[in-house]
């Protein structure tokens, strides 16, 4: 039983450390790039391995202007993202673009889907697959 408690503490500490690192990375490296848009205050980050894809469902409100910013740690060569509507119709693809954000206006309230894919070497020098933090931030204009 003691061993189980140690395992739980170990596991929780691991999660807490990873979350804290992601939070620090997001605050220092990502949020400043949202300006002049106001950050919506949400921490949307997760740990991804190279080649993994994550997905977000987002609601954007009519009459507003938004910036979506996708930000990945340096272990990734690139972090690509696509914005799709509910029928999977592609509205934006960051492939081939240098900016990691997209600015747009919304005419009528929409539920859209964001797909984020990490790009990099499958394995590092030690032969282990690498994972890093990816954050998606949303800013809006007043």
């Amino acid at each position, binding site marked *: *039983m003691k*061993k*189980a408690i140690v*395992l*739980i503490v*170990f*596991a*929780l500490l*691991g*999660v*807490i450390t*990873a*979350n*804290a690192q992601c*939070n620090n990375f997001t*605050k220092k490296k990502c949020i400043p790039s949202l300006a002049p848009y*106001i*950050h*919506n*205050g949400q*921490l*949307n*980050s*997760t740990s991804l*391995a190279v080649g*993994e*894809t*994550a*997905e*977000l*469902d*987002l*609601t*954007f*409100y*009519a*009459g507003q202007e*938004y910036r979506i910013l996708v930000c990945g740690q340096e272990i990734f060569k690139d972090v690509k993202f696509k914005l799709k*509507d*509910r*029928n999977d*119709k592609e*509205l*934006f693809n960051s492939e081939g673009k240098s900016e990691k954000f*997209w*600015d*747009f*206006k*919304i*005419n*009528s*309230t*929409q*539920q*859209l889907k964001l797909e984020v894919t990490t790009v990099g070497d499958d394995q590092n020098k030690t032969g282990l697959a*690498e*994972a890093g933090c990816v954050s998606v931030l*949303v800013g*809006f204009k*007043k």
Partner: protein
Amino acid sequence: MGNNFRKYSTSIVAPCMAAMAIMLASSCSNTSESTEETRDTIKVEQTISQAQKVLFSLPSPVEMAMLLKNGGANYDKDILNDIDNASKYSTNSKRALNLGVYGTDLAYTAMYNQTQETVFYMAATKKMADGLGITGAFTDKTAERMEANQSNNDSILAIISDSYYETDAFLKENDRASASALMIAGGWIEGLHLAIKVYEKSPKNQKLRQRVADEKLTLTNLIGLLESYPGDENVTPILAEFQKLKASYDKLPEANADVTATTDETTKVTTIGASSQITMSDEQFREISAAVESLREGFIKP
């Protein structure tokens, strides 16, 4: 803006940690103890997996307040949660819900430049955060920044957004994401309550009415967020209440048309639009309004 974040494949961290845990557990010689610990290990793996694979969030208080103002809503302090209630919330569940409620009220007062009210609601929000043991979000420095920027509305809103981010991050970092979910639920219901109450006083404001109808989309995300904490004794009864509200929202018809993205060649700004819209009859509005007010009453009652 509301969202939910999920991964197609499992994260590298969870399997690695689970594998290490299984290795440690398997080193035990006693069979029954080993079985028990393996069971514990599986629980640990599920916890990690849940924490890493799915993240949800919904519109922040500042965003909700901005939507109200842009929708032409008037300021009305009488529809906010009484600040005297702040000292009466004694459970963590109530504090988390009302951290969201007061957070939205705080953003609403700030959005309308109600400086004195903003100070009061900042104190009420801080009281909820302190009661939950949240550090770093509402500090003396935050209060000083608010005071120094009293005349700059954009700065005040940025400070509130920063505090909300710190609160959300603190709860997620400290494995208290279910409290973050309750805070988000409280903030969302308060935003909807404000929209409904202001609309009832200005029934010609169709923007506000549409705003209430549009929350059908976000409610789906909120339900998903709450469902990601199965068995949580604080979240389960709240989830049941929101499912009742969803039953009312499900009655609203929704036209499904193609979404278009048009880029202005001069400004390079893309506009996303569609002819689809959620519609709501007067009877449906009354039903949703009653459900929202009942939910909110349960949240803010000390």
